[in-house]
């Protein structure tokens, strides 16, 4: 990751740590490394432009606070990934989506079966599917 990205991340961590809006100086104090005042200001400005930070006037200084909590952003990431709106507009190819109801029961059974037969020997592929209803089996093609 580039240096600017790392700084943004570090500064967001500082903002997320507290409930109050911070001045540039207060953010600088909270950072693990010492940075020039102007650098911190620039990065905060960038974060505000991207919408991750909000700023408000306090006398002559700006005060910054995160636009949303860390958890809310994580939730946003996950919602896109899990695609719960049913719209894959982001075209993110994801590994699998969990299911509920009857199919989940069937899957759980199959998984238990696979876990039991952890040892490869004495395990014919066909036997694995003994517990599956026939409609779930792919037809044996010639």
């Amino acid at each position, binding site marked *: *990751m580039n240096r600017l*990205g790392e700084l*943004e*991340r570090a500064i*967001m961590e500082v903002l997320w740590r507290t409930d109050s809006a911070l001045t540039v100086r207060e953010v600088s104090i909270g950072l693990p490394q010492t940075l020039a005042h102007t650098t911190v200001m620039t990065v905060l400005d960038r974060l505000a432009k*991207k919408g*991750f930070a909000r700023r408000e006037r306090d006398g002559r200084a700006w005060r910054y606070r995160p636009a949303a909590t*860390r*958890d*809310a*952003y*994580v*939730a*946003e*990431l*996950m*919602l*896109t*990934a*899990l*695609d*719960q709106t*049913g*719209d*894959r*507009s*982001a*075209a*993110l*190819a*994801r*590994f*699998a*989506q*969990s*299911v*509920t109801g009857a*199919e*989940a029961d*069937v*899957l*759980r059974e*199959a*998984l*238990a079966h*696979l*876990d039991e037969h952890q040892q*490869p020997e004495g395990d014919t*592929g*066909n036997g*694995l*599917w003994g517990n*599956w209803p026939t409609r*779930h*089996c*792919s*037809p*044996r*093609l*010639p």
Partner: protein
Amino acid sequence: MGELADATLLAAVAVGSVRCASALAGASWPRRSPAAAILLWQALGLAGGLAAVGALVAVGVNNEGTGVAGGVLIVGRRLATGELTSHQEPPLVTLAQITCLAAGISLLAILWWVLVMAFAAVVQARRRQRELLALLAHGDPKAPGALVVDHPTAAAYCLPGIRSRIVVSVGTLDLLAPAELVAVLEHERAHLRARHDLVLIPFTSLRRAFPRSRVIAQSYRTVALLVEMMADDHALRALPARELPTTVELLPARELAKALLRFGVAGTSCAPEGALTVTGAAAAGAGRGSGQLPSAGPAGASPSGGTEGEITARVSRLLEPPPPLPRFVQAGIVIAAALLVSGVVLLLIMP
């Protein structure tokens, strides 16, 4: 008269494409050779769309005697010079023709527009994802080459593009055994390598444009599943070559199948934004091998409606792989797809 014949033929191709799409969605051979099937899907979509536009336009430019494409040029020239009303035809026929022409052009514009919009939406969503990941994600030795997000719900996905990313959640790391995780990461790598996202974009955009169309929704689901199967295949081929944790005996297909099953029964919480973390913590309990029931989503919030059987189909295919189609059949499918598209283009160009 030639244009009317063209219009009839093109309309037949358009209707035939839809019929074929329905038949293809129900066919069982595509899972034997997903790549060939996807090519056929793309050809059907392209030919069907072009033929539908062409049929409408052909009626609109009827009796110009120049072919569909030539007819459009002539009508365009007339419009530019304002001679459109100098027809010998009765006004009602002219009106019907203009309506058809307008409908055809509108359809083309809509199809083009939704494709552009879908692409823009994808680019924007990916940028947002990248920004969020830069702030939130971190590496983890358990998942080399992937970004890890601190969330208890199991998820694994990839973010295609020039700077592509594979993302897994902490829930995934807890859910999967090391060998299963290796298989999942390889599956995502396969998506990225082959740019499967580009394959899906036309179908995504069509579904956005015509959300009510059942044929399109079905087509989308079928192609999406075929793309996943293709990535499964690629992952299996790549897996033995990679360095694997030596402590586990790896049967790639089995590990991938187990990972899929674990994802399937892990349960995601269908909570609104912000609440996800709270209910997600409950889902974390559905960890590996706990046999716990998946947390049910709120009533009416069926997460997908379309994934019923998706995991089942992939798992059964992994564990009992059907033989791929013979070479000459695959070649036949490729040729048929090429003939279909070029046939429609010829119909549009030829006088």
